[in-house]
């Protein structure tokens, strides 16, 4: 079942097929079903590596680049991933669903402004 959809019991379908997701930098790897975003599957398993933000394609902290394999992407804020970037494998992990095993690198991160020392953002 996709993120943002109400919970319901349903028989396993093709979307539930598991793919292996590997983070190039750390070697971290985890299983992700085809109907779960790369980010949701990671945080649901308690794994780390891709920064976790809004899970809605709006904030951009979970930006990745797919190095091997392929993903299906839902709408992502063009402020963070341009059409050109998407064509070369960039995506937001919260909007990317695996179509095969995937090897990726983490591009995004939590933005720490100059003002971090002022306590807040």
């Amino acid at each position, binding site marked *: *079942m996709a*993120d*943002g*959809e*109400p*919970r319901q019991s349903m028989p396993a379908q093709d979307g539930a097929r598991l793919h292996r997701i590997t983070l190039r930098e750390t070697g971290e790897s985890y299983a992700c079903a085809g109907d779960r975003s790369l980010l949701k599957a990671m945080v649901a398993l308690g794994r780390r590596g891709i*920064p*976790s*933000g*809004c*899970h*809605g*394609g*709006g*904030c951009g*902290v979970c930006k990745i680049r797919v190095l091997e394999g392929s993903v299906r992407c*839902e*709408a*992502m*804020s*063009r*402020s963070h991933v341009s059409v050109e970037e998407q064509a070369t494998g960039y995506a937001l992990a*919260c909007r990317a669903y695996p179509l095969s095993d995937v090897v990726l690198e983490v591009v995004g991160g*939590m*933005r*720490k*402004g*100059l*003002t971090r*020392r*002022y*306590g*807040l*953002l």
Partner: protein
Amino acid sequence: MGVMRIGHINLRVLDMQAALRHYRDVLGMVPTDEDHKGNVYLKCWDEWDKYSVMLSPADRAGMNHVAYKVERDSDLDDIKARIRDYGREVEELAPGELPYCGRALRFKMPSGHLMYLYADKEFVGTSVGTLNPDPWPDDIRGAGAHWLDHVLLLCELNPEAGVNKVVENETFFRDVLGFRLTEQLMAGPDKSVKALAFMTVSIKPHDIAFVGGPCNGLHHCSFFLEDWGDVLRAADVMGKNRVKMDVTPQRHGITRGKTIYFFDPSGNRNETFAGLGYAAYPDMPVITWTDDQIGSAIFYHTGEIHEAFTAVYTEGY
């Protein structure tokens, strides 16, 4: 006289059907209209004007504008003059240019966020009406939010470069729009940098708030619930609907609000909160927090800041 309350927020969304499911089924808002551009208008059951949320289809998330309602039409003339005297630009729009509203003022806050003021908006009425009303209607969905309560805007703060848009906004809202400071957070080595300003134009703890950050942004828009039980139930609704939650039910130090932070399907952060904390009468002394206690100021129970809360936001322009 002058600005009364928040009127609406215009949010950009990446997927209108997903956004509609969220604001209607999770927050419990009532869709009231859709225009030829695909904008969708919604109100909460306890609100009487036609909309407090306007959703606009877009390819990037964030806020287009926020609008506040003034008490009388003549307030618009007074405020327009005050904005000009203050040395800032302001446009007057004909009735209808701001959807379903009378004439309006449009201007930018010092932080760059776009703001409108209007005196009239199409009236719809609350879901319980005004004649011997029930306390709540039977067709409440989801969290059953009562009203859009406030927005928290990210404002550029870079003291080394002499930039503090939190203070610039606070000054503008105080001197031109008649808002009052209720709470502030002072930061830096000698606690001289104002990094947070909460302001009211009513007796609520805040009708708008400004927080320092690396750039202009939308931190969240917030919806009111009646009590702690409603907050827990709202979190249950979010769990049922697999809504991405940022902060599960908690208490704020600032405002004393009992809160949940979560995201709409486009990544715009929402809050539902209960408890108006205190009555911020005009003679209430300003509350000050210091950045060594920032964890408690924001999340009173844990006293800890978590990274996503402060580093994750959408655009505010």
